[in-house]
Protein backbone atom coordinates (compact mmCIF):
# COMPACT_ATOMS: atom_id res chain seq x y z
CA UNK A 1 0.00 0.00 0.00
CA UNK A 2 1.40 3.32 -0.98
CA UNK A 3 -0.67 6.01 0.68
CA UNK A 4 -2.47 7.47 -2.32
CA UNK A 5 -6.07 7.45 -1.17
CA UNK A 6 -7.69 10.21 0.76
CA UNK A 7 -11.05 11.96 0.67
CA UNK A 8 -11.70 15.03 -1.43
CA UNK A 9 -11.40 17.43 1.49
CA UNK A 10 -13.06 20.27 -0.40
CA UNK A 11 -16.25 18.21 -0.56
CA UNK A 12 -16.43 17.54 3.17
CA UNK A 13 -17.58 19.65 6.05
CA UNK A 14 -15.24 20.28 8.96
CA UNK A 15 -17.00 17.57 10.92
CA UNK A 16 -16.65 15.04 8.13
CA UNK A 17 -12.96 15.80 7.75
CA UNK A 18 -12.61 15.31 11.49
CA UNK A 19 -14.26 11.93 11.13
CA UNK A 20 -11.64 10.82 8.61
CA UNK A 21 -8.96 12.12 10.88
CA UNK A 22 -10.50 10.18 13.77
CA UNK A 23 -10.15 6.98 11.73
CA UNK A 24 -6.54 7.89 10.95
CA UNK A 25 -5.79 8.42 14.64
CA UNK A 26 -7.81 5.33 15.61
CA UNK A 27 -5.70 3.13 13.38
CA UNK A 28 -2.53 4.77 14.69
CA UNK A 29 -3.52 4.01 18.29
CA UNK A 30 -4.47 0.46 17.39
CA UNK A 31 -1.12 -0.10 15.65
CA UNK A 32 0.67 1.27 18.71
CA UNK A 33 -1.38 -0.68 21.23
CA UNK A 34 -1.19 -4.03 19.45
CA UNK A 35 2.15 -3.95 17.70
CA UNK A 36 4.30 -1.44 19.53
CA UNK A 37 5.53 2.07 18.93
CA UNK A 38 7.47 1.33 15.73
CA UNK A 39 4.35 0.00 14.03
CA UNK A 40 2.78 3.46 14.24
CA UNK A 41 5.19 4.61 11.57
CA UNK A 42 3.53 2.27 9.08
CA UNK A 43 0.32 4.27 9.17
CA UNK A 44 -0.79 5.77 5.88
CA UNK A 45 -3.96 6.92 4.11
CA UNK A 46 -4.53 3.68 2.24
CA UNK A 47 -4.55 1.72 5.49
CA UNK A 48 -6.95 4.27 6.98
CA UNK A 49 -9.22 3.78 3.99
CA UNK A 50 -8.99 0.03 4.50
CA UNK A 51 -9.90 0.44 8.18
CA UNK A 52 -12.93 2.57 7.30
CA UNK A 53 -14.18 0.06 4.74
CA UNK A 54 -13.74 -2.82 7.16
CA UNK A 55 -15.63 -0.84 9.82
CA UNK A 56 -18.77 -0.45 7.70
CA UNK A 57 -21.83 -1.97 9.30
CA UNK A 58 -20.42 -1.70 12.81
CA UNK A 59 -21.12 1.16 15.14
CA UNK A 60 -18.02 3.26 15.64
CA UNK A 61 -17.75 5.46 18.68
CA UNK A 62 -15.42 8.39 19.02
CA UNK A 63 -13.22 9.07 22.02
CA UNK A 64 -10.86 11.92 22.75
CA UNK A 65 -7.30 10.70 23.16
CA UNK A 66 -3.88 12.21 23.54
CA UNK A 67 -0.79 10.91 21.85
CA UNK A 68 2.77 12.02 21.21
CA UNK A 69 1.56 14.12 18.28
CA UNK A 70 -1.25 15.67 20.29
CA UNK A 71 0.18 15.80 23.79
CA UNK A 72 -1.75 18.79 25.11
CA UNK A 73 -5.08 18.76 23.36
CA UNK A 74 -6.26 15.27 22.57
CA UNK A 75 -8.12 14.61 19.37
CA UNK A 76 -11.15 12.65 18.29
CA UNK A 77 -10.23 9.06 17.68
CA UNK A 78 -12.45 6.17 16.72
CA UNK A 79 -12.52 3.63 19.50
CA UNK A 80 -10.90 0.20 19.27
CA UNK A 81 -12.91 -2.37 17.34
CA UNK A 82 -12.46 -5.74 15.68
CA UNK A 83 -12.40 -4.02 12.26
CA UNK A 84 -9.57 -1.71 13.34
CA UNK A 85 -7.67 -4.66 14.79
CA UNK A 86 -8.01 -6.55 11.51
CA UNK A 87 -6.93 -3.50 9.48
CA UNK A 88 -3.93 -2.99 11.78
CA UNK A 89 -2.80 -6.62 11.46
CA UNK A 90 -3.13 -6.50 7.69
CA UNK A 91 -1.29 -3.18 7.53
CA UNK A 92 1.67 -4.60 9.45
CA UNK A 93 1.81 -7.78 7.34
CA UNK A 94 1.62 -5.85 4.07
CA UNK A 95 4.23 -3.33 5.13
CA UNK A 96 6.58 -6.04 6.36
CA UNK A 97 6.59 -7.84 3.03
CA UNK A 98 6.96 -4.60 1.17
CA UNK A 99 10.05 -3.84 3.24
CA UNK A 100 11.39 -7.33 2.50
CA UNK A 101 10.80 -6.66 -1.16
CA UNK A 102 12.79 -3.43 -0.94
CA UNK A 103 15.62 -5.26 0.83
CA UNK A 104 15.74 -7.81 -1.98
CA UNK A 105 15.70 -5.05 -4.62
CA UNK A 106 18.47 -2.92 -3.12
CA UNK A 107 22.13 -3.50 -2.51
CA UNK A 108 23.67 -3.59 0.94
CA UNK A 109 24.20 0.16 1.41
CA UNK A 110 21.14 1.49 -0.38
CA UNK A 111 18.99 -1.11 1.36
CA UNK A 112 20.33 -0.29 4.79
CA UNK A 113 17.34 1.83 5.82
CA UNK A 114 14.99 -1.02 4.93
CA UNK A 115 17.10 -3.47 6.93
CA UNK A 116 16.91 -1.12 9.88
CA UNK A 117 13.14 -0.81 9.48
CA UNK A 118 12.84 -4.60 9.32
CA UNK A 119 14.88 -4.90 12.48
CA UNK A 120 12.61 -2.46 14.31
CA UNK A 121 9.45 -4.10 13.04
CA UNK A 122 10.36 -7.75 13.45
CA UNK A 123 8.40 -8.09 16.70
CA UNK A 124 5.38 -6.30 15.30
CA UNK A 125 5.36 -8.53 12.25
CA UNK A 126 5.60 -11.73 14.29
CA UNK A 127 2.59 -10.71 16.33
CA UNK A 128 0.61 -9.59 13.26
CA UNK A 129 1.46 -12.85 11.51
CA UNK A 130 -0.05 -14.73 14.43
CA UNK A 131 -3.19 -12.56 14.20
CA UNK A 132 -3.59 -12.85 10.42
CA UNK A 133 -1.77 -16.01 9.41
CA UNK A 134 -3.87 -16.71 6.28
CA UNK A 135 -3.41 -13.19 5.04
CA UNK A 136 0.32 -13.43 5.67
CA UNK A 137 0.52 -16.56 3.54
CA UNK A 138 -1.48 -14.94 0.72
CA UNK A 139 0.72 -11.85 0.73
CA UNK A 140 3.92 -13.93 0.52
CA UNK A 141 2.53 -15.98 -2.30
CA UNK A 142 1.21 -13.03 -4.29
CA UNK A 143 4.31 -10.92 -3.86
CA UNK A 144 6.31 -13.87 -5.11
CA UNK A 145 4.07 -13.97 -8.20
CA UNK A 146 4.51 -10.23 -8.58
CA UNK A 147 8.30 -10.56 -8.67
CA UNK A 148 7.93 -13.35 -11.23
CA UNK A 149 5.92 -11.04 -13.46
CA UNK A 150 8.66 -8.47 -13.09
CA UNK A 151 11.32 -10.99 -13.95
CA UNK A 152 9.55 -12.11 -17.09
CA UNK A 153 9.00 -8.44 -18.10
CA UNK A 154 5.24 -8.95 -18.32
CA UNK A 155 3.73 -6.77 -21.07
CA UNK A 156 0.10 -7.12 -19.95
CA UNK A 157 -1.06 -4.46 -17.51
CA UNK A 158 -3.77 -6.72 -16.14
CA UNK A 159 -1.53 -9.74 -15.71
CA UNK A 160 1.10 -7.57 -14.00
CA UNK A 161 -1.47 -5.99 -11.69
CA UNK A 162 -3.26 -9.26 -10.93
CA UNK A 163 -1.08 -10.52 -8.02
CA UNK A 164 -1.39 -7.24 -6.11
CA UNK A 165 -5.12 -7.00 -6.92
CA UNK A 166 -5.74 -10.56 -5.71
CA UNK A 167 -3.60 -9.92 -2.65
CA UNK A 168 -5.74 -6.97 -1.68
CA UNK A 169 -8.99 -8.77 -2.47
CA UNK A 170 -7.98 -11.30 0.20
CA UNK A 171 -8.69 -8.60 2.78
CA UNK A 172 -12.32 -9.54 2.13
CA UNK A 173 -11.86 -13.00 3.59
CA UNK A 174 -12.28 -11.59 7.11
CA UNK A 175 -15.95 -10.90 6.31
CA UNK A 176 -18.32 -13.56 7.56
CA UNK A 177 -21.30 -12.56 5.41
CA UNK A 178 -21.12 -14.17 1.96
CA UNK A 179 -22.70 -11.25 0.07
CA UNK A 180 -20.51 -8.71 1.78
CA UNK A 181 -17.46 -10.84 1.09
CA UNK A 182 -18.27 -10.89 -2.63
CA UNK A 183 -18.72 -7.11 -2.71
CA UNK A 184 -15.50 -6.49 -0.80
CA UNK A 185 -13.59 -8.92 -2.97
CA UNK A 186 -14.60 -7.00 -6.10
CA UNK A 187 -13.95 -3.63 -4.48
CA UNK A 188 -10.51 -4.56 -3.16
CA UNK A 189 -9.49 -6.30 -6.36
CA UNK A 190 -9.98 -3.08 -8.30
CA UNK A 191 -8.48 -1.01 -5.53
CA UNK A 192 -5.36 -3.19 -5.79
CA UNK A 193 -5.35 -2.88 -9.56
CA UNK A 194 -5.77 0.88 -9.38
CA UNK A 195 -3.03 1.32 -6.75
CA UNK A 196 -0.63 -0.88 -8.71
CA UNK A 197 -1.16 1.01 -11.97
CA UNK A 198 -1.09 4.46 -10.36
CA UNK A 199 2.16 3.51 -8.66
CA UNK A 200 3.56 2.27 -11.96
CA UNK A 201 2.74 5.64 -13.56
CA UNK A 202 4.15 7.50 -10.57
CA UNK A 203 7.43 5.56 -10.68
CA UNK A 204 7.72 5.57 -14.45
CA UNK A 205 10.50 8.13 -14.71
CA UNK A 206 12.60 6.60 -11.92
CA UNK A 207 12.16 3.09 -13.30
CA UNK A 208 13.18 4.22 -16.77
CA UNK A 209 16.30 5.91 -15.44
CA UNK A 210 17.30 3.01 -13.21
CA UNK A 211 16.43 0.35 -15.76
CA UNK A 212 13.83 -1.25 -13.45
CA UNK A 213 10.81 -3.13 -14.73
CA UNK A 214 7.74 -1.01 -15.30
CA UNK A 215 4.57 -2.59 -16.75
CA UNK A 216 3.70 0.58 -18.69
CA UNK A 217 7.01 0.58 -20.56
CA UNK A 218 6.47 -3.05 -21.62
CA UNK A 219 2.77 -2.67 -22.44
CA UNK A 220 3.15 0.44 -24.59
CA UNK A 221 6.75 -0.12 -25.76
CA UNK A 222 7.97 3.26 -24.53
CA UNK A 223 11.65 4.11 -24.94
CA UNK A 224 12.04 7.44 -23.12
CA UNK A 225 11.47 8.34 -19.50
CA UNK A 226 8.17 10.20 -19.95
CA UNK A 227 4.71 8.85 -20.68
CA UNK A 228 3.46 9.97 -24.12
CA UNK A 229 0.11 11.80 -24.11
CA UNK A 230 -1.70 8.99 -25.93
CA UNK A 231 -0.54 6.53 -23.27
CA UNK A 232 -1.68 8.84 -20.49
CA UNK A 233 -5.13 8.97 -22.07
CA UNK A 234 -5.37 5.21 -22.42
CA UNK A 235 -4.06 4.63 -18.94
CA UNK A 236 -6.55 7.17 -17.60
CA UNK A 237 -9.36 5.20 -19.21
CA UNK A 238 -8.27 1.90 -17.72
CA UNK A 239 -7.90 3.52 -14.29
CA UNK A 240 -11.39 4.97 -14.66
CA UNK A 241 -12.72 1.50 -15.51
CA UNK A 242 -11.40 0.23 -12.18
CA UNK A 243 -12.79 3.23 -10.29
CA UNK A 244 -16.22 2.54 -11.77
CA UNK A 245 -15.99 -1.12 -10.75
CA UNK A 246 -15.08 0.00 -7.22
CA UNK A 247 -17.92 2.53 -7.17
CA UNK A 248 -20.37 -0.13 -8.38
CA UNK A 249 -19.33 -2.44 -5.54
CA UNK A 250 -19.36 0.40 -3.01
CA UNK A 251 -22.94 1.33 -4.02
CA UNK A 252 -24.04 -2.10 -2.79
CA UNK A 253 -22.66 -1.47 0.70
CA UNK A 254 -24.38 0.48 3.41
CA UNK A 255 -21.80 3.14 4.25
CA UNK A 256 -23.88 4.69 7.07
CA UNK A 257 -21.98 7.47 8.84
CA UNK A 258 -19.07 7.13 6.40
CA UNK A 259 -21.20 7.94 3.34
CA UNK A 260 -19.87 11.47 2.77
CA UNK A 261 -16.24 10.50 3.24
CA UNK A 262 -16.47 7.43 1.00
CA UNK A 263 -18.64 9.17 -1.62
CA UNK A 264 -15.97 11.83 -1.92
CA UNK A 265 -13.36 9.11 -2.50
CA UNK A 266 -15.21 6.88 -4.96
CA UNK A 267 -16.94 9.62 -6.94
CA UNK A 268 -14.28 12.30 -6.88
CA UNK A 269 -10.84 11.99 -5.32
CA UNK A 270 -9.76 8.75 -7.02
CA UNK A 271 -10.16 10.52 -10.36
CA UNK A 272 -8.31 13.56 -9.06
CA UNK A 273 -5.40 11.56 -7.64
CA UNK A 274 -5.09 9.36 -10.74
CA UNK A 275 -5.24 12.45 -12.97
CA UNK A 276 -2.62 14.28 -10.92
CA UNK A 277 -0.26 11.29 -11.10
CA UNK A 278 -0.74 10.94 -14.85
CA UNK A 279 -0.09 14.63 -15.38
CA UNK A 280 2.98 14.49 -13.20
CA UNK A 281 1.71 17.05 -10.69
CA UNK A 282 1.14 14.65 -7.83
CA UNK A 283 3.30 14.70 -4.74
CA UNK A 284 2.84 12.16 -2.02
CA UNK A 285 1.91 13.78 1.25
CA UNK A 286 4.12 12.39 3.94
CA UNK A 287 1.81 12.85 6.89
CA UNK A 288 -1.61 14.07 7.80
CA UNK A 289 -1.84 17.82 8.35
CA UNK A 290 -5.04 18.34 10.10
CA UNK A 291 -5.52 22.08 9.96
CA UNK A 292 -5.15 22.16 6.23
CA UNK A 293 -7.82 19.61 5.46
CA UNK A 294 -10.33 21.11 7.81
CA UNK A 295 -10.03 24.45 6.06
CA UNK A 296 -11.61 22.84 3.05
CA UNK A 297 -8.91 23.24 0.39
CA UNK A 298 -10.51 26.37 -0.94
CA UNK A 299 -7.34 28.26 -1.65
Amino acid sequence: MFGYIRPAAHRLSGEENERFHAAYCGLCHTLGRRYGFAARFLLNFDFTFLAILLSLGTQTSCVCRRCIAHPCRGCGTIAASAALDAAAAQSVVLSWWQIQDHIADHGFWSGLKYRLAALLLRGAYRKARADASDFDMTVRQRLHELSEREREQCASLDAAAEPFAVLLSEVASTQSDETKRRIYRQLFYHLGRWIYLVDAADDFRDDARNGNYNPLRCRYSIDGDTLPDAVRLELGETLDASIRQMAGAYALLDAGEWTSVLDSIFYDSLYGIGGAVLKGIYRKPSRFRRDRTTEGETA
Partner: protein
Amino acid sequence: MSDPYKVLNVSPNASDDEIKHAYRELARKYHPDNYHDNPLADLAQEKMKEINEAYEQVQRQRKARSSYDAQRGSYSQSSYSYGGASGQADSSDPLLQQVRAAINSGDITRAERLLNEAQAHGAEWNFLMGVVCTRRGWMDEAKQYFQNACRMDPNNAEYRQALQMFNNSGYQPAGFRSFGSMTYGSDDCLRMCAAWSCCMLSGGRCCIF
Protein backbone atom coordinates in the same frame (compact mmCIF):
# COMPACT_ATOMS: atom_id res chain seq x y z
CA MET B 1 -40.75 -6.58 3.68
CA SER B 2 -38.61 -3.89 5.27
CA ASP B 3 -39.84 -0.32 5.62
CA PRO B 4 -40.25 1.02 2.05
CA TYR B 5 -39.33 4.55 3.15
CA LYS B 6 -36.10 3.24 4.60
CA VAL B 7 -35.31 1.43 1.36
CA LEU B 8 -35.86 4.67 -0.56
CA ASN B 9 -33.90 6.56 2.09
CA VAL B 10 -36.62 9.16 2.63
CA SER B 11 -38.72 10.22 5.59
CA PRO B 12 -42.33 8.97 5.72
CA ASN B 13 -43.29 12.67 5.72
CA ALA B 14 -41.50 13.35 2.44
CA SER B 15 -43.51 14.89 -0.36
CA ASP B 16 -44.42 12.89 -3.46
CA ASP B 17 -41.86 14.83 -5.44
CA GLU B 18 -39.11 14.08 -2.94
CA ILE B 19 -39.96 10.40 -3.07
CA LYS B 20 -39.98 10.41 -6.84
CA HIS B 21 -36.63 12.16 -6.86
CA ALA B 22 -35.13 9.68 -4.36
CA TYR B 23 -36.46 6.77 -6.39
CA ARG B 24 -35.03 8.09 -9.62
CA GLU B 25 -31.65 8.69 -8.02
CA LEU B 26 -31.56 5.12 -6.72
CA ALA B 27 -32.73 3.74 -10.07
CA ARG B 28 -29.88 5.63 -11.71
CA LYS B 29 -27.44 4.26 -9.15
CA TYR B 30 -28.33 0.61 -9.63
CA HIS B 31 -29.12 0.83 -13.33
CA PRO B 32 -28.11 -2.32 -15.20
CA ASP B 33 -25.85 -0.25 -17.48
CA ASN B 34 -23.61 0.40 -14.48
CA TYR B 35 -23.27 -3.34 -13.87
CA HIS B 36 -22.82 -4.61 -17.39
CA ASP B 37 -20.66 -7.76 -17.32
CA ASN B 38 -20.04 -7.07 -13.66
CA PRO B 39 -19.68 -10.02 -11.26
CA LEU B 40 -21.99 -8.20 -8.83
CA ALA B 41 -24.77 -7.63 -11.41
CA ASP B 42 -27.09 -10.07 -9.59
CA LEU B 43 -26.78 -8.07 -6.35
CA ALA B 44 -27.54 -4.81 -8.15
CA GLN B 45 -30.53 -6.50 -9.75
CA GLU B 46 -31.83 -7.61 -6.33
CA LYS B 47 -31.33 -4.09 -5.03
CA MET B 48 -33.21 -2.65 -7.99
CA LYS B 49 -36.06 -5.07 -7.38
CA GLU B 50 -36.22 -4.08 -3.74
CA ILE B 51 -36.29 -0.39 -4.69
CA ASN B 52 -39.02 -0.93 -7.30
CA GLU B 53 -41.13 -2.84 -4.80
CA ALA B 54 -40.62 -0.19 -2.12
CA TYR B 55 -41.58 2.56 -4.54
CA GLU B 56 -44.68 0.75 -5.68
CA GLN B 57 -45.66 0.05 -2.08
CA VAL B 58 -45.29 3.70 -1.13
CA GLN B 59 -47.34 4.65 -4.19
CA ARG B 60 -50.08 2.23 -3.19
CA GLN B 61 -50.13 3.43 0.42
CA ARG B 62 -50.33 7.07 -0.60
CA LYS B 63 -52.96 6.36 -3.22
CA ALA B 64 -55.12 4.63 -0.64
CA ARG B 65 -54.64 7.51 1.76
CA SER B 66 -55.57 10.30 -0.63
CA SER B 67 -57.97 9.63 -3.44
CA TYR B 68 -57.03 12.79 -5.39
CA ASP B 69 -53.60 11.35 -5.95
CA ALA B 70 -54.91 8.66 -8.26
CA GLN B 71 -52.73 9.47 -11.26
CA ARG B 72 -49.54 8.59 -9.36
CA GLY B 73 -49.86 4.88 -10.12
CA SER B 74 -48.29 5.28 -13.53
CA TYR B 75 -44.78 5.75 -12.15
CA SER B 76 -44.32 2.06 -11.71
CA GLN B 77 -44.12 1.83 -15.48
CA SER B 78 -41.04 3.94 -15.45
CA SER B 79 -39.29 1.51 -13.10
CA TYR B 80 -36.05 0.26 -14.46
CA SER B 81 -35.93 -3.45 -14.89
CA TYR B 82 -33.43 -5.96 -16.11
CA GLY B 83 -33.98 -7.81 -19.33
CA GLY B 84 -31.31 -10.26 -18.15
CA ALA B 85 -27.72 -9.14 -18.37
CA SER B 86 -27.15 -11.58 -21.20
CA GLY B 87 -29.12 -10.24 -24.10
CA GLN B 88 -26.68 -11.98 -26.35
CA ALA B 89 -27.28 -13.28 -29.82
CA ASP B 90 -27.05 -16.95 -30.76
CA SER B 91 -23.73 -18.16 -31.94
CA SER B 92 -23.20 -20.24 -35.06
CA ASP B 93 -20.09 -21.89 -33.65
CA PRO B 94 -20.99 -24.69 -31.20
CA LEU B 95 -17.89 -24.03 -29.09
CA LEU B 96 -18.73 -20.33 -28.76
CA GLN B 97 -22.30 -21.32 -27.92
CA GLN B 98 -20.91 -23.30 -25.02
CA VAL B 99 -18.85 -20.25 -24.03
CA ARG B 100 -21.97 -18.11 -23.96
CA ALA B 101 -23.76 -20.71 -21.85
CA ALA B 102 -20.83 -20.82 -19.42
CA ILE B 103 -20.78 -17.01 -19.16
CA ASN B 104 -24.53 -16.91 -18.55
CA SER B 105 -24.23 -19.48 -15.79
CA GLY B 106 -21.42 -17.44 -14.23
CA ASP B 107 -18.73 -20.07 -14.85
CA ILE B 108 -16.01 -17.76 -16.13
CA THR B 109 -13.20 -20.27 -15.65
CA ARG B 110 -14.92 -22.74 -17.98
CA ALA B 111 -15.68 -19.98 -20.50
CA GLU B 112 -12.05 -18.98 -20.53
CA ARG B 113 -10.84 -22.57 -20.91
CA LEU B 114 -13.17 -23.10 -23.87
CA LEU B 115 -12.04 -19.86 -25.50
CA ASN B 116 -8.42 -20.92 -25.16
CA GLU B 117 -9.27 -24.16 -26.98
CA ALA B 118 -10.78 -22.33 -29.96
CA GLN B 119 -8.73 -22.40 -33.15
CA ALA B 120 -10.24 -19.42 -34.94
CA HIS B 121 -10.04 -16.02 -33.29
CA GLY B 122 -12.77 -14.14 -35.11
CA ALA B 123 -14.88 -11.16 -34.06
CA GLU B 124 -17.15 -13.19 -31.79
CA TRP B 125 -14.21 -14.90 -30.09
CA ASN B 126 -12.72 -11.47 -29.38
CA PHE B 127 -16.04 -10.21 -28.08
CA LEU B 128 -16.43 -13.18 -25.72
CA MET B 129 -12.84 -12.83 -24.53
CA GLY B 130 -13.72 -9.20 -23.76
CA VAL B 131 -16.70 -10.30 -21.66
CA VAL B 132 -14.59 -12.85 -19.76
CA CYS B 133 -11.85 -10.28 -19.13
CA THR B 134 -14.38 -7.70 -17.89
CA ARG B 135 -15.81 -10.23 -15.43
CA ARG B 136 -12.32 -10.99 -14.17
CA GLY B 137 -11.49 -7.32 -13.80
CA TRP B 138 -8.90 -7.34 -16.60
CA MET B 139 -10.12 -4.05 -17.97
CA ASP B 140 -7.22 -3.17 -20.25
CA GLU B 141 -7.33 -6.52 -22.05
CA ALA B 142 -11.14 -6.41 -22.18
CA LYS B 143 -11.10 -3.13 -24.00
CA GLN B 144 -8.57 -4.40 -26.52
CA TYR B 145 -10.72 -7.47 -27.23
CA PHE B 146 -13.89 -5.39 -27.65
CA GLN B 147 -12.04 -3.04 -29.97
CA ASN B 148 -10.79 -6.01 -32.01
CA ALA B 149 -14.33 -7.42 -32.26
CA CYS B 150 -15.68 -4.06 -33.46
CA ARG B 151 -12.86 -3.69 -35.94
CA MET B 152 -13.47 -7.16 -37.40
CA ASP B 153 -17.24 -6.77 -37.55
CA PRO B 154 -18.08 -3.05 -37.41
CA ASN B 155 -21.81 -3.57 -38.03
CA ASN B 156 -22.45 -5.93 -35.14
CA ALA B 157 -24.70 -4.17 -32.64
CA GLU B 158 -23.79 -6.52 -29.79
CA TYR B 159 -20.07 -5.78 -30.04
CA ARG B 160 -20.64 -2.07 -30.47
CA GLN B 161 -22.86 -2.03 -27.40
CA ALA B 162 -20.21 -3.87 -25.38
CA LEU B 163 -17.61 -1.25 -26.25
CA GLN B 164 -20.07 1.53 -25.56
CA MET B 165 -20.95 0.04 -22.17
CA PHE B 166 -17.26 -0.26 -21.43
CA ASN B 167 -16.81 3.45 -21.98
CA ASN B 168 -19.99 4.26 -20.03
CA SER B 169 -19.17 6.91 -17.48
CA GLY B 170 -21.05 5.07 -14.71
CA TYR B 171 -23.08 6.45 -11.85
CA GLN B 172 -22.18 9.75 -10.23
CA PRO B 173 -24.46 11.01 -7.45
CA ALA B 174 -26.15 14.39 -7.78
CA GLY B 175 -23.57 17.08 -7.08
CA PHE B 176 -20.66 15.03 -8.42
CA ARG B 177 -19.64 15.87 -11.94
CA SER B 178 -18.97 13.11 -14.34
CA PHE B 179 -15.30 13.10 -15.24
CA GLY B 180 -12.36 10.82 -15.87
CA SER B 181 -8.86 10.90 -14.46
CA MET B 182 -7.55 12.74 -17.51
CA THR B 183 -10.38 15.29 -17.67
CA TYR B 184 -10.36 15.97 -13.95
CA GLY B 185 -7.90 18.82 -14.14
CA SER B 186 -9.73 20.75 -16.85
CA ASP B 187 -11.33 24.16 -16.24
CA ASP B 188 -12.51 24.83 -12.72
CA CYS B 189 -11.33 21.44 -11.51
CA LEU B 190 -7.76 22.55 -12.02
CA ARG B 191 -7.39 24.14 -8.64
CA MET B 192 -8.83 21.03 -7.01
CA CYS B 193 -6.28 19.01 -8.88
CA ALA B 194 -3.51 21.27 -7.70
CA ALA B 195 -4.82 20.70 -4.21
CA TRP B 196 -3.90 17.01 -4.50
CA SER B 197 -0.28 17.89 -4.82
CA CYS B 198 -0.15 20.34 -1.97
CA CYS B 199 -2.92 19.33 0.38
CA MET B 200 -1.78 18.15 3.72
CA LEU B 201 1.77 19.09 2.89
CA SER B 202 1.88 22.34 4.70
CA GLY B 203 0.00 23.77 7.58
CA GLY B 204 0.33 24.40 11.23
CA ARG B 205 -0.05 21.81 13.90
CA CYS B 206 0.24 18.34 12.57
CA CYS B 207 0.08 14.72 13.49
CA ILE B 208 3.51 13.17 13.17
CA PHE B 209 2.15 9.77 12.22
